């Protein structure tokens, strides 16, 4: 999971101020546990676009893609791969 550490740092800073990145398990369900709601999801997507230069208009966005750090990592990995291939 190449992006997991950066994603954890972002999620913790933005949504979990009293938690350290190390405490956040990559499989912790961010949606079911109310860390990220539908508005929070927009923040996550904006961050991914900004940080990884991914144009999310060209990929399908489903909430399941963002429900854990591992899922976000997989999403970024796939999107970056596609971008590299397409470029």
């Amino acid at each position, binding site marked *: 999971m190449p992006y997991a550490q950066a994603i954890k740092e972002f999620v913790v800073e933005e949504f979990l101020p009293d*938690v350290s990145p190390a405490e*956040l398990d990559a499989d912790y369900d961010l*949606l079911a*546990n*109310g860390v990220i*709601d*539908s508005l929070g999801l927009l923040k996550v997507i904006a961050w991914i676009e900004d940080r990884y230069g991914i144009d999310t208009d060209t990929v399908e966005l489903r909430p399941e893609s963002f429900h854990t750090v591992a899922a976000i990592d997989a999403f970024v990995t796939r999107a970056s791969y596609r971008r590299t291939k397409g470029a």
Partner: protein
Amino acid sequence: MEGTTIAGPPRPLVKSFVDQARRTPEATALVWRGHSVGYGALLARAERERDRMAALPAGAPAALPAVKSPGTIALILGCLLARRPLLLPSPALGADVTERLYEQAGVGHVLAPGRPPAARRSPTVDLSGNALLLTTSGSTGLPKIVPLSSTALDQFVTWAAGAFGIGPGTTVLNYAPLNFDVCLLDVWTTLARGGRVVLVDAERVTDGGRLLALVERERPEVVQSVPMFYRLLADAARAGGRTLPSVRHAVFTGDTMPVPVVAALPGLLPHARLYNVYGCTETNDSFLYELRGTPDPARPLPLGQPLPGVEALLVDAEGRVLDGPGSGELYVSTPFQSEGYLGAAAASGAFVPHPEGADDRRWFRSGDLVRRSPDGTLTLVGRTDFQVKILGVRVNPQEVEHLLLAHPDVTEAAVRAVPDPAAGHTLRAVARRRPGSRLNSLSLRGHLAQRLSRAAIPAALLITDEPLPRTATGKVDRERAGHVHFTEES
């Protein structure tokens, strides 16, 4: 609770007190700062107070700031002897608020122990039949004035003395300030039945070590208090493994009892029956729940059974009485209730006829949202006026708070809804964890997620090791907890 029924006219409270004082003048009535005041001495002081106000017009209300002391208690008894309606405001209210309360109640004279009444203005109202004018303890605005008739007090005494076995010589702890309705039990029922009231000094109410020492020394059999008192006692007793075997009945009321405190009580009070009482100043005690075994930490304590003579309804948002399972506002009608507020609040619409015209009783709209489960159990969900919408979902912050407190590692919690431009409202929660606990907000979120819809999980949830700020009455101050832990921008 022993099965007590209210049949026939109850013995008047003050007459019972006088009888006790004549029969056993040497018996201790009050224990205050290590000194005892006997029944005979207390009656003599009360009669002097009565004589001092003999010239006041009948039925005209007087006022007395409720500073806790034997002198104040003697003066209240003097008013009861003189059938003088008495407004008992908290001594902690500001001068402006106090003056406005006097105005709304039509107070002609202000009383002080051992002094002649001070005239404020010529009395204009006749409140004959009312004994005490208590006030609600709302945190904002002017407290509402709640007149209680002598009949209501007498009926309360009859119930309370029977339910908790209060008779001659029974020692009862009084923790609350004298302006609180709970004193009907601690102080007035005890004095009417010849018991011994141990008064906790207002300056000592948050000192767990001293409270523990007081209970060990004076050995009360009946104790009634807010959860904070039990938490202070349990914390102070834990280190030395101390227990309080004198207590036979322990009543808690006024706030949600945290699970760790409930769990500590059987060890702390090995011989006590434990009760949760539901009631408010307007109706006085209405429901009683006796805890048996360890309560399920995931569920709030039930309201329990209505007291003898108490009727209750659940009324839905359309004003229909709910007969089966469901949630609705609790309407209560009790033998101990007020007939209605005095002053501007009289028009508040809190005291109403039966919503479907089914009887002639006067019902009090509690403002509490209560759920009836299929087996008939009633549980408090929160305040009807605290409901907010988050992303279109109706959420009650107090229900979230109850669930946080149900976590075994949480000792205090505050949940507050704040307006949010996008979501409508958003919840901010602070939870204090048990000392030594490694609880973090991730696992606490998991606890909530199992029991709540997603919108009700607080967007901001912080764990702290520090005590949460509390109000003067010992309840968690949600407003201040919010300010301490969240900056306005977050």
